[in-house]
């Protein structure tokens, strides 16, 4: 991960020559980098907005809930590199098609899991405990879903990165109240380390970094 040009985020491309979503690429020192657009990826937005610690590094394993078309997944895959693995869970078949075509088929470290994240025990091909659970799901009970996945697959001491989508949880209540309510649900081994708002990249969204100690 490097800062390039006008202070932009970029990740070293694990699959040189292939782009996941028509992002810009640039070559520096013989390595191809893909620019990481904070308007497209909430993880990039969180980093730019001061997320203290990115728990991802080479060889990390990640359970990614709500992979969608794989925009962020591709960058996470760049970061964890060939020694790491990303289990990309997505339920909707339309976007999963793009995920498979653009990202999963080109990156050996991405394991696509087309399943409903509500039912973690039904996942196939997921093995071991992961270092990070990243959850970006548009469901009213997104926090509960993320927590149940953590209990099943996150190692003790691992991190949950939770995108809180206030508009998906409750359109009527004020966003800050919704966030408060979601954070209050984090009990029993979960400890919120940091909360980052995603303005101006995403409205009414926030990212919570949550430490997990196995219950």
């Amino acid at each position, binding site marked *: 991960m490097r800062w390039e040009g006008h202070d932009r985020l970029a990740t070293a491309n694990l699959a040189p020559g292939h782009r996941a979503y028509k992002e810009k690429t640039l070559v520096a020192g013989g390595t191809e980098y893909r620019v990481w657009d904070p308007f497209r990826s909430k993880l990039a937005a969180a980093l730019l907005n001061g997320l203290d610690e990115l728990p991802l590094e080479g060889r990390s394993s990640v359970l990614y809930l709500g992979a969608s078309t794989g925009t962020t997944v591709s960058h996470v895959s760049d970061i964890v590199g060939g020694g790491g*693995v990303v289990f990309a869970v997505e339920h909707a*078949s*339309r976007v*999963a*098609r793009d995920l*498979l075509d653009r990202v*999963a*088929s080109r990156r*050996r470290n991405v*394991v*696509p*899991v*087309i399943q409903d994240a509500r039912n973690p025990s*039904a996942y*196939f*091909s*997921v*093995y*071991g*405990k992961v270092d990070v659970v990243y959850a970006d799901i548009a469901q009213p009970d997104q926090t509960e879903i993320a927590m149940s996945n953590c209990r099943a697959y996150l190692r003790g001491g691992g991190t949950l990165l939770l995108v809180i989508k206030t508009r998906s949880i409750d*359109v*009527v209540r004020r966003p800050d109240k919704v966030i408060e309510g979601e954070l209050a649900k984090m009990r029993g081994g979960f400890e919120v380390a940091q909360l980052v708002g995603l303005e101006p990249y995403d409205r009414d969204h926030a990212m919570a970094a949550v430490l997990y100690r196995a219950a």
Partner: protein
Amino acid sequence: MMEVVLTELGVAVREGGEGGRTARVFPFSRSDPASEYVEARAGRVPEPLSGLAGYLAGLDSGALVSDEPLLLALKKGGADDCRLMDAEARERIQSSKPDVLVESGLAADRDEALERLRDFAMQLSSSKVAAASGSPDMHVIQAIGSLDEIDRMSNAAGSRLREWYGLHFPELDNIADGAAGYARIVLAGRRDGLSEEAFRGAGFDDAKVQMLSVACGHSRGGEISDGDLAAVQGMARQVLGMHDLRRELEARVEDQMRAVAPNLSAILGASVGARILARAGSLKRLASMPSSTIQVIGAEKALFRALKTGSRPPKHGLLFQHPLVHAAPRWQRGKVARAVAAKAAIAARVDVYSEGSINSTLLERLNVRVGEIGKKYSEPPPPGEPEPRERGRGGAADDRPRGRGGAADDRPRGRGGAADDRPRGRGGAGPPGRRSRPADDRGRGGAGPPGRRSRPADDRGRGGAGPPGRRSRPADDRGRGGAGPPGRRSRPADDRGRGGAGPPGRRSRPADDRGRGGAGPPGRRSRPADDRGRGGAGPPGRRGGGGAKGRAGGGSRGRGKGGGRKRGGRSGGPP
């Protein structure tokens, strides 16, 4: 105690505990482990596992099985002494899955295990995606989407065609009102070369053929060069092509809806059903929706506004297009929509879960209920009730889909219609019209001055103006204007209407179909000229069904009452 472990690559039977010796392996096929795995998890026994139950039955000790459906299948197969593994053991296996694969010989080493797990995931995911894209309801959804798209395109191209060929033969515009008929005449060539045969061939009746023959004799149009004519004709061919395509698509949707969702289309009709289906995403999702959701599908904007501000929720969304809802008097519509939605919800479930059967009682019960509503609430609620309550910016039905489009406000549609950011409407605009939305499409409609939300047209507006119309929305489709002065919600000329105005009518809706106007002054619900009526005004009747033959109702034929426009309105409705 033996352990029976279901993995993605096969079943391993091993001695219990950590690092237990593997006794026997039943691998899935190399080429297609995914479907065999899915079968096993669905409680069936795929071919490679056919010997498993017998093998287990022959063991001295019992076995613990890692997967419940597999356990049930094995018990059926005669392996009685099996139990489900406890959660802790399953967790242990799960977290050391690559090792289990290697130990049991399903993979040569850890790297191969990971590789094959990933391949498995790719394979299973791909097959799931393929299965989802193959379901016929997806195709219905695409077809109805295309239909709407074609409508939009052919309307735009058709009106451009009229503009262009109109330079040469302006009179045709008023006489030929179908896009296809117009295009055929354009294809026939210059106006002076047109024979009666050509007109007849374009599908006009004798009266029109007469008018056309006279008109092309002394036209006010200019000359057109060969090159330009060829270009216009190319355009006309496209319009005709789209016309045919539209017909095919419509038939296709009708067909497929009957095949995919026979009950739903019996209740809703094919096109409304298909649009609701498209909004829901799939038939399965529709079947899991509550009827209250179905009732307001397509009115999300109004619904969320209602939730936010605490005002009254919308009565109907896409369901407004349903004939029963549409035809019901205004005060009954909410009730009718609710009844229709309730039956539609049941119908969708019948379609998904009891394939092929048609439940005719649904429709009967619906009709009974609608009849009941009609009787019980035959009188409108007394005025002064909070019934047409003011709210946000003009009412629940704001984003109720209209016209053909069938989509909510947030989808740009038609010409001057929905999209705020597309100032292309031809409709005129009234200065401070509250929410005048003239001329969805080719409408030359007017607008309502003192309303509050006027959406001015561009320089081509032909619209008339209707003074204090609160929400005048004339001419959904080819309407030529008209407006509803103090009408609360005048919506003249649903289709081809040429105008008309409904002055103090509460809800004047002249010219449902080809009507040319008409107005119903103080009528509460004036709806003149249902069919081909040419206007007229329905005096103070309650339901002024307008008379006929008046070209423009209500007020005048004044040109350009409204805003700055080139061509002035054909009809306006100054009070």
